[in-house]
């Protein structure tokens, strides 16, 4: 079995045991200033064509595993220290290592009966849209695959967390609650998927991120029955070409602006997000400087038949260049035109067996290949424009 195959049984049992032990520790040695939580998710994928998270085409890939363990400790009333370790294995993109997902010192500077202001330092999750800060925690996500036009999995490391500082403020009024975050830090991403998503499959140099900022303003009514949010990020990646490469040391600036709206009723839920992203490529030498705009949006409806059983439907669309929706530029670069877009219809069913155990399944009908990972699909010319995806997920948390 290759290294991307299923976790060896011994390792899996060991991890489960460790998780159970730690939940035991929490129960037995609970102290009010220390909290321990965690999760374990295993996913299975099958596709009619193209590969996701390993070899899923005409087979079943167990290639996406997420295990997290976090601790929060409050040494003083106004100071909270928290950290989360994340093990993630994702097909041929990520062979599976344990990383520090976040490590935060949170200092509450001001607290009145209606407002909070504070600062955070360390490795901080990036606030972006409704789901980014907890994107690897299955229980907090609406579906197994987040809408990929906005929550790209292949270039996720730019979005997951950043090393730096953050200012946050919230204000509670009779007319709703306001939340504001401003983060400044170094994004963690410099991997091959990001390179290929920006410069195409033939580039071979290295990307390095400049300090970037991310900010979010959100407004919630009735404790989250209605949510509105605006998120904006500004990040620049510098390219170091490898020896003999035709590209020179250029840079790419990416500025996504994201609008989010959500209604959470007792049974019915409705969510929509709209992404408008400016991209600016400079100084790559053989490629002229150019700017283009990417766009993505989705609309998602959910219904709780009973509190434990939820059905979900979503339509998600992405265009990498709104002036070239058909992908003519890709064709002129020798690639298939369908790498420039993706439209995804999905239906799914989620069953919360207990509050800490969940199983769900979903079906996607996809038109386009824009968010396929190159590592799982080495020959772009072999990818198919129209394909089906089936997914199954088991998740445990405490």
């Amino acid at each position: 079995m290759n290294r991307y195959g299923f976790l060896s049984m011994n390792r899996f049992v060991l991890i489960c045991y460790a998780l159970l032990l730690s939940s035991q520790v929490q129960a037995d040695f609970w102290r009010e200033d220390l909290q321990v939580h965690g999760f374990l998710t295993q996913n299975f994928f099958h596709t009619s064509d193209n590969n996701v998270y390993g070899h899923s085409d005409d087979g079943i890939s167990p290639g996406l595993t997420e295990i997290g363990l976090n601790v929060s400790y409050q040494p003083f009333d106004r100071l909270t220290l928290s950290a989360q370790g994340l093990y993630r294995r994702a097909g041929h993109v990520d062979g599976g290592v344990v990383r520090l997902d976040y490590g935060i010192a949170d200092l509450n500077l001001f607290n009145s009966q209606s407002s909070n202001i504070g600062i955070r330092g360390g490795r901080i999750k990036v606030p972006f849209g409704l789901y980014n800060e907890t994107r690897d925690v299955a229980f907090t996500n609406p579906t197994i695959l987040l809408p990929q036009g906005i929550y790209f999995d292949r270039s996720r490391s730019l979005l997951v967390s950043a090393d730096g500082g953050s200012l946050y403020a919230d204000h509670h009024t009779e007319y709703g609650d306001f939340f504001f975050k401003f983060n400044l830090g170094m994004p963690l991403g410099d991997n091959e998927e990001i390179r290929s998503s920006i410069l195409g499959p033939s580039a071979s140099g290295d990307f390095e991120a400049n300090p970037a900022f991310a900010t979010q303003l959100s407004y919630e009514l009735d404790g989250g029955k209605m949510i509105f949010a605006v998120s904006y990020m500004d990040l620049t990646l510098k390219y170091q070409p490898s020896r003999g490469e035709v590209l020179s040391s250029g840079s790419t600036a990416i500025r996504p602006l994201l609008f989010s709206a959500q209604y959470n009723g007792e049974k019915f839920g409705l969510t929509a997000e709209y992404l408008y992203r400016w991209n600016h490529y400079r100084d790559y030498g053989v490629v002229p400087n150019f700017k283009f705009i990417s766009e993505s949006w989705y609309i998602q409806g959910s219904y709780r038949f009973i509190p434990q059983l939820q059905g979900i439907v979503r339509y998600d669309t992405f265009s990498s260049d709104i002036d070239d929706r058909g992908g003519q530029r890709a064709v002129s670069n020798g690639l298939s035109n369908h790498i420039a877009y993706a439209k995804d219809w999905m239906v799914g069913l989620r069953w919360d067996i207990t509050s800490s155990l969940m199983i769900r399944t979903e079906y996607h009908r996809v038109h386009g290949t824009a968010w396929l990972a190159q590592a799982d699909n080495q020959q772009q010319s072999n990818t198919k424009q129209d394909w089906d995806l089936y997914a199954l997920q088991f998740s445990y948390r405490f």
Partner: protein
Amino acid sequence: MNCKVAILVALLSVFSVSKGNAVEVVVNQSVPVQTITLNKIRAIFTMRQKFWPGGEPIKVFTLADQDPIHKKFTKNKLHMFPHQLRRVWDRMVYSGTGRAPVVLENEQQMLDKVANTPHAIGYLSKEPENEQIRVFVNE
């Protein structure tokens, strides 16, 4: 006339029955607040309001999501649903930006914890007969 009186009596008894079934928000006697608004109580149970007006840290206790008293509490006292509250807590817990309340196993434990923890807040299905606990009145 008799008919009207009968209806009135019936209505009153319905109201008194539902009042008897209602959930009460309770606090430890040390809490320096007598009444509270819906906004404040939401801010406390969504773990966003962390201190009482005097600066004392608030200790929040809750029951499991599927507990009938918890469901009644979220619906009647917060005007929310358990899954909305869960969403808020999970977001904070798994992003390192906040902490979840302490989940207790049953109402008896809730009574003991609120009675014995200074600055604690929780809820009970009936008015407690315990000098350490006081019922919060909605403003």
